[in-house]
């Protein structure tokens, strides 16, 4: 994208969502990187972007980050319309942490951060650097060269670099890729801290448990947007709610026990003495099922609502795409 002078952000723009995309597409020659993607992200929201390799996640980050021009569609970033003229204005208000930290390995941690503080022209750079290093627990390594740091520490430096400009919108592209569990936990805590400070976070990740734990809403992308919503909403959209019933012995007439119970819509046997019941409302169905089983003389071992994870949602959608030969 080319770039122009600084734009003035109008009052109307400042009340816009932190990020929005309207039928956004990007094509490289014959290959469609992503197509017809629409979403809006509110201020202070942690928004997860999930998808298999090659789904277009990084290209979307690059597009919203003004590195790549969209082929079609419109978007706003930090309340500013995504146009070539607004490139500099947008980049002043955002920060992107790419998947690879991309640090100058011959330079110290502080020298790396000084360079970016100057590129963002932040006031009082020394204090900002100190604050960013404190946020990622790296103050004691400030004068080490980045080449001497472990992968986890380099990732932390990259995060500090992304925080130095106090961005309104922070794009994190696979921020925990290749990190050990302790470093991953530190990054998660940092993202939680950013949420508390009202920073809008756009997080692409392969780690579904990470998205489930951190994100207010998630979008699942596989070139086109396959689903968007809170993880719990996606589970409800994709999976019927079920109760799993386990008894000590096989029920002689399960149909007679489960038929006609309130909120129970159907059942099937899923093992010698295990039954899966499709229910409209587990809080109504579970007590009724318990009473019916006791009345039938069954020894009940457990009655539990089946919990579908975000991983189940993700795999369901991605497998569906594979099934139709995408």
């Amino acid at each position, binding site marked *: 994208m080319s*770039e122009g002078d600084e734009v003035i952000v109008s009052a109307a723009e400042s009340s816009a969502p932190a990020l929005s995309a309207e039928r956004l597409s990007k094509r490289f*020659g014959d290959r469609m990187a992503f197509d017809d993607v629409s979403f809006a992200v509110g201020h202070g929201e942690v928004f997860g972007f999930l998808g298999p390799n090659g789904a277009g996640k990084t290209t979307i980050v690059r597009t919203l980050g003004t590195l*790549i021009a969209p082929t079609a569609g419109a978007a706003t970033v930090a309340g500013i319309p995504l146009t070539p003229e607004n490139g500099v204005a947008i980049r*002043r208000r955002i920060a992107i942490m790419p998947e690879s930290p*991309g640090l100058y390995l011959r330079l110290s941690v502080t020298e790396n951060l000084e360079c970016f503080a100057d*590129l*963002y022209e932040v006031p009082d750079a020394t204090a900002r650097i100190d604050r960013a290093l404190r946020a990622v627990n790296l103050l004691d390594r400030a004068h080490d060269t980045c080449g001497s740091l472990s992968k986890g520490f380099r990732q932390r430096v990259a995060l500090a670099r992304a925080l130095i400009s106090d961005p309104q919108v922070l794009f994190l592209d696979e921020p925990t890729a290749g990190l050990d569990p302790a470093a991953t936990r530190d990054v998660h805590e940092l993202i939680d801290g950013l949420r508390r400070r009202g920073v809008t976070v756009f997080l692409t990740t392969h780690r579904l448990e990470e998205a489930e734990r951190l994100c207010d809403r998630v979008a699942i992308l596989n070139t086109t947007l396959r689903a968007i919503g809170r993880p719990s909403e996606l589970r409800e959209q994709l999976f019927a709610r079920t109760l799993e019933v386990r008894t000590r012995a096989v029920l002689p007439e399960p149909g007679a026990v489960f038929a006609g119970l309130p909120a129970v819509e159907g059942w099937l046997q899923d093992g010698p003495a295990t039954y899966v019941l499709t229910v409209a409302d587990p809080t109504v169905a579970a007590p009724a099922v318990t009473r019916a089983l006791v009345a039938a003389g069954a020894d009940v071992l457990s009655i539990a609502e089946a919990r579908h994870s975000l991983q189940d949602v993700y795999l369901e959608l991605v497998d569906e795409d594979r099934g139709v030969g995408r």
Partner: protein
Amino acid sequence: MMSLSRRRVGAILRKELREYRRSRSIVPTMGAVPLLFVLVPLIESTTQTASTLRQYPLLLYLLGVPAIVPVVLAGYAVAGERQQGTLEPVLTTPIRSQELVLAKTLAALVPSLAISYAWYGVVAAGVALLARPGVPSALLRAPEVVALLLFTPLLASWSIWIGIAISSRLNDARAAQQLGSLASLPTIAVTILIVADVIPATLVLALVLAVVLLLLDGLGWRIMTAMFDRERLVTGTSS
């Protein structure tokens, strides 16, 4: 007319100079490459007579130094950063293409000029110390010294544009440096033809070459700022 930020240009310039200083390969290479052009005048000054040396502008052979040295740095400018994954984080900042090009150019130009002029000093000192009487005045003639000093930044800038243009199209810094060296051969060839008196060194020729180089440098700036399109740099394709 948009204004360029001195702070952003300075940030990249400082970063580049720090990286060069700490690189195990860049400084030794930049120091060693000029030997090829420095040794010839030094050897000639000790083996030839003053009357022989007066017949051709041997000193201009040193212009090979600013033609070849910047290629080492300029070749690394974009391809090296791309190779290390450091280019994309810079492009996500508010830096403008013009600021990035200017910073990269200065980062290659400043050390190249310093090294070129330092080697000229070494040659002058060597000639003064080692050559036979009469040779220093035959070799270090005022018009050639002036031409050497004036053409050095013009040639260095031209080599930098070529080097950065090649570097921005490749992902491998070493390949960019090698291709850049090849691309600077015509400039060196012209210099050698002048030294060998195949092309007579006259004031008119000097003025024409200076104007041509100025135009080429201006053209280089325009082309390079257009080539520093973020999408092209990140993905290798333009929008």
